């Protein structure tokens, strides 16, 4: 963590705790957008939002892939000591360029019926403006929630559903934006027909 202390102002104890609680809130209430910019602003580099998620959840006990982004991969490895892995074997898959999204979602670990916790979390950077909204339902949502989403989010969820995971297998999706919006879509969250 020396790189974290030297280069960034992110507090590995208190900022990590606050970031985690925001991520937990987003996971427990899918469709709710939480704001992480206060903590992302304490990290430098091109992708402080992705780094804020990485330093909160990753360490040498897990693996990650940053797809084709070598600078991001180096930054995450230096800050967290997490193992670099191929996207299909990584516990966390960071997608900073949406052109990598299809491969990342299609190849991400889905876990097994007996060990569904071995599945991947896919974290997508999405700065596109909302083009409409989706009705989401599932655990954590009181009946239904309407969420304004970009085309990237729509495409990601459509692609996720096309994998036809047999629950409890599946992947969990995080969407982060440069202005600090954070949205979580766990595997049980479903898109309701309009």
């Amino acid at each position, binding site marked *: 963590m020396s790189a974290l202390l030297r280069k960034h102002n992110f507090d*590995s*104890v208190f900022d990590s705790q606050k970031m*985690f609680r925001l*991520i937990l809130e987003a996971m427990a209430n899918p469709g709710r957008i939480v704001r992480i910019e206060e903590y992302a602003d304490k990290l430098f580099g091109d992708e402080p939002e992705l780094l804020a998620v990485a330093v909160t959840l990753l360490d040498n006990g897990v693996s990650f892939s940053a797809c084709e982004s070598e600078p991001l991969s180096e930054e995450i490895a230096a800050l967290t000591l997490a193992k670099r892995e191929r996207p299909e074997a990584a516990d966390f898959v960071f997608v900073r360029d949406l052109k990598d999204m299809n491969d990342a979602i299609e190849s991400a670990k889905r876990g097994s019926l007996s060990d*569904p*916790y071995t599945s991947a979390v896919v974290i997508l950077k999405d700065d596109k403006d909302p083009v409409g909204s989706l009705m989401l339902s599932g655990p*954590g*949502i009181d009946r239904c929630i309407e969420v304004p989403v970009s085309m990237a989010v729509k495409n990601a969820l459509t692609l996720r559903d096309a994998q036809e995971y047999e629950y*409890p297998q599946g992947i969990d999706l995080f969407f982060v934006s440069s202005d600090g919006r954070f949205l979580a879509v766990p595997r049980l969250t479903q898109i309701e027909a309009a």
Partner: protein
Amino acid sequence: MNKNYNFAFLDEGSKREIRRAALKAVAIPGYQVPFGSRELPIGRGWGTGGIQLTLSLIGPDDMLKVIDQGSDESVNAVNIKKFVGLCTDIETTTDTRKATIIQTRHRIPEIPLTNEQILILQVPIPEPLRVVEAREEVTKKMHAEKDYAPMWLQLYESLVKYKRVTIASEYPCMVEGRYMMNPSPIPKFDNPKLHKAECLYLFGAGREKKIYAVPPYTEVVSLAFDDIPFEKESFTGKICRLCGSADTYLDEVFDAQTGERVYQCSDTSYCQEVRSRAAR
């Protein structure tokens, strides 16, 4: 705060692992996520799973409440509060409404919790199938295949033998129609509070090294047959001797000298609140 320890006692690596397990547990409601349970200055079986979750979640903005069998003042509750206080300086409360994190053993508070609150339950035996199957590798496979027939058979046998289901606490339930879950040793009275609740429930079993969760608005249905509905404890005709409540979970208090039996609210904070309202 004792500066010889990290904030919230656990090292940051341990917290991160527990946090990752908690997120997976929320993503797969009712599924028991394994984690590397840490040594604590308290024996396993005394709430170490709940404490590890509390320590991994808690921050300077939180207000903590700890209850044991509904009581804020029992030895277990007081010592856990002192321990967390020593290594965090977090404020504690007995007021259910003021708490952001509530750690509990054997009860869910009478007051409905809000979406801003997290209830952390201490769990001795997380595996609901343990009563019908001793081997972990087999129960794991049963969960994978959603093979819960032996548990249903046990309920049926209970009906045949005793004309009713005799499980008083740890009454199993189905979460989102997929996982059978042990709701921890809460009385059956509290099972309905898990269904479509506003708050997040986290369950920690330190000795068994498992974490599981029920997110808000999740379907939690206690096991029952079509013609034999689930029944919680009935306290018909009994009221709390202190506050007069007739709709709460009551503890029976027996006076050995007079042979008298009286009843009082198990949730001491709620009982106190009712009495304070009446005194105004």
